[in-house]
C-alpha cells in the first residue's frame, strides 16, 4: 500500500479540529492544555510530512519539529506551574471563573 501525502494530512486535520474543539469547549484548564498539545502535535505531523513528500532531500522540517516538541515540553511545564498556582489562589481550575485579567 502506497501512503500518499493526503493520508497523513487527513488525520492531522482531524487531530487539529479535535484540538480546537476541545480548546473552545472544555472548562477544565488541564483539558484545555491537552487540547493545545493536540493542535501542536498535528502541526508537527504536517511539518514532517511536508518535508518528507515535498522536499525529500532536506531536513529543515524535521529539525523544526524537534524544536517545536522541545519548546512545547517547556511550555507545558510552565503552563502546569501556572495552573497549580491559579488553583492555590482560586481553589478551582474552571476557566470561566478565572477571568480577572481584564480592564
Amino acid at each position, binding site marked *: 500500500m502506497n501512503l500518499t501525502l493526503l493520508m497523513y494530512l487527513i488525520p492531522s486535520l482531524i487531530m487539529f479540529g479535535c484540538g480546537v474543539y476541545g*480548546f*473552545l469547549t472544555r472548562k477544565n484548564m488541564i483539558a484545555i492544555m491537552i487540547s493545545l498539545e493536540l493542535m501542536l502535535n498535528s502541526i508537527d505531523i504536517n511539518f514532517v510530512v511536508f518535508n518528507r513528500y515535498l522536499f525529500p532531500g532536506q531536513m529543515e522540517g524535521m529539525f523544526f519539529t524537534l524544536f517545536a516538541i522541545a519548546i512545547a515540553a517547556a511550555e507545558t511545564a510552565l503552563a502546569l506551574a501556572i495552573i497549580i498556582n491559579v488553583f492555590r489562589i482560586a481553589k478551582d481550575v474552571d476557566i470561566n471563573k478565572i*477571568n480577572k485579567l481584564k480592564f
Partner: protein
Amino acid sequence: MPLSYTIAVIAIPLLMFLFLGLVGVKMEKKLTGILGCIGMLVTTVLAYGVALTYFFGTGEGQVSAEGVRQAVTVFNPDWLSFSKTLVVRMGIMLDPIAAMMLIVITTVSMMVHLYSLGYMCDHHGHAEKGFQRYYAFLALFTFSMLGLVVATNLFQIFIFFEMVGVSSYLLIGFYYESPAAIHASKKAFIVTRLADLFFLVGILILSYYTQTFDFFGSDVNGIAGLLDNPQSSVAKAGATTFMGCSAMAWALTFIFIGGAGKSAMYPLHIWLPDAMEGPTPVSALIHAATMVVAGVYLVARLFPLYVIVQGAMDIICVVGAFTAFYAAAIACVQSDIKRALAFSTISQIAFMMTSLAVSSADGKLIEIHGGYGLGYMASMFHLFTHAMFKALLFLCAGAIIHAVHSNENDKMHGLHKYMPITSFAFLIGCLAIAGIPPFAGFWSKDEILVAAYEKGLGWGIWMSMVAGMTAFYMFRIYFLIFHWKKHEVHTEHEPSDQPWTMTLPLIILATISIVAGFVPAANLVTWDGAPLHTQLNWTVAGSSVLIACVGIGLAYKMYYKENTLPQRMADSCRGLWTAAYRRFYMDELYQFITHKVIFQGICKPIAKFDRAVIDGFFNMLAEVTNTVSFGIRKLQSGSIQGYVYVYFIGALLLAAVTAMFVIF
C-alpha cells in the same frame, strides 16, 4: 598709566556688595553698616584722587597741544566678541563728565552711607530689620552707577543702566512688607524697563549703521566731516530714511526715550513720585542725585551725535521744557514732603535736559562757541550742584520724617524751634535750588537760563518762569515745615535734631551747597575738553534773582504765618488745584490705558482665544481618546475562550480570503 587705580573705585563697591550680601547676614548689624561706610570712604577718596588727577594732572595724553583735555581710556578689554565688528567691550573711560560724575556719586553715596547709620535705626538706636541687606544694596547701586559713568561704549552703558534699575527696584521695595512699597518698586521697574526697551532698539539701530558700539569722540568737526563723506557709516545712517526721518534720528530719539524713562521725563515720570516709598536716604541717593540723572548723562554722552541731528534735539527740548513746568506746577500743591521734593527733582532734571537740548541752538554744525558748549556745560554743572543740594534737601526731609514719623506737611509745622540745624540746612538747600547768589544753584541755573535765552526769547522766558515757580514751591515747603504755626507734638517724644551720623552729612552737604557754585565748571566740564570762556550775563542773572525773590516773597506771604490765603486761593480755582494735587490725572490715565485698554481690550481677548481655541483643541483630542477607549474596553472581557473564538473566526476568514485570491 597713572589712572589705572580707577579700577579700584569700581571694584570696591562691588566687593562690598558681595561681602555684605553674603557674609553680612551673619554679622552684627551695626558692624556691617560701619564696614559699608569704610568701604565707601576708601572709594570716595580714590574717586577724588582720580577726578583731581584727571582735571588738574598734566600727564601724557591728558592735555593736547591746544589745551584741550582728552578723554583717557584707562583700559578697554574685549568682553564678548561675536565677530570682527560686533565686539562688546567693558572698560573704563575718563572724560570731563565721567570724572565729575565720579565725584558726585561718591560724595552723595558717602553721605548717604553715613546718614543711614542713624536713619535706619529706631529711636532707641536699634538697627532695623534688613540693615545688612540695605547696605549691600547701597553698595550694589554705587557700583552700578560708577560703572555706568565710566562706560567706554553704549552697550556697557546699557548693561549698567539695567543694573541701576535693578538696584533701584530692590531699594524702593526695601520695606517689602508694605504693599505700597512693593507696588512702587514694580511700577518703577516696569516703567524704566519699558523705556530701556526703546533704548536697546536705539542702540541696535545706531550700531547697525555705524558698525560700532563705541562713542564718537567730542570732535564735531570730525563727525561733520564723516557726514559729508558719503562712504562713511555716519553718513549712511544719516542718509537712510524711515518714515521721513533718518535712521540716525530714529536711533537717537529711541535712546532719548530710554534716558527719559530713567530721568523721569513726561510722560514716563509716573514712577518717580511713587519711588518715594523707599527709605529716604535711598531717595536722596538714587531718586534725587544720581540714578535719575543717568538719562541726562546718556544724552550728554552722545552729545556729538545729537548736535548733528537737530530733530532729536528739538524733541528733547520740548519734552524737557514741558516737564520742567508740569512738575513744578504739581510740586506747588503736594502735601507729602517727599513727593513735593520728587516733583522738584523731575523739574530740575528737565532743566538739565532742556539745557543740553538748547546747546545746539543755532543749528549750524561746526560752531564751537556760544550756544554750543554753554548749554552742555550748564547742564553738567547744574547736575553737579543739583545733586548736592537735592541730596541735602532729601536728607533733611529724612531727618524730619524720622523725628515726626510722618510724611505729611500738617504733621510738621513750626519745627524750626525743635530742629535748628536741620532747619538751617534745609534753608540753605532751598536758597540753593531757588537760585539766590552765592549759593550753588544760582551759578548753574543762571548758565542754563543764558543758554535758553540764546536759543530764543520764548525758551528763556519759559525757563525763567519755571525757575520762579521753583523758588515758590521750595519755600512753600520750607515755611510749611518749619514755620506756619506752633508745632503740635504728636509722638510720645518731642522732635529734635537727630544724632551726629545724620546731622554731619547735612552740615557737609550744606557747606558744599554754599561753595559748589564757585567750582570753575566752565574750565573743567566742557563737552570738548577745551575751557569755555563765560561771563556772568547781568541781565539774565539780575532778572532770575528778581524772579526767585518774587517767588520766595509770595511763599513768605502765603505760608510763613498761619492764614487762610492758601485755602482761599485753592478754593478760587478748585478744579485746577485738585488736578494739580492729583498730578493732572496722569496716574489715572496710565491706569486707564493699561487696565481698560490693554488688559481689557487686548489681553483678555487673547487669553480667551488661548483658553478656548488652543487649549480647547488639545482638550478635545484628549476627550475623544478617552470616550473611545471607554467604549471599546468591554472587548477585553477576561474570558480566554472568548478571545480564542474571535481569533479562530478571524483566522478562518483570513484563510477564506486567501483561498479566494488563490482560486480566482
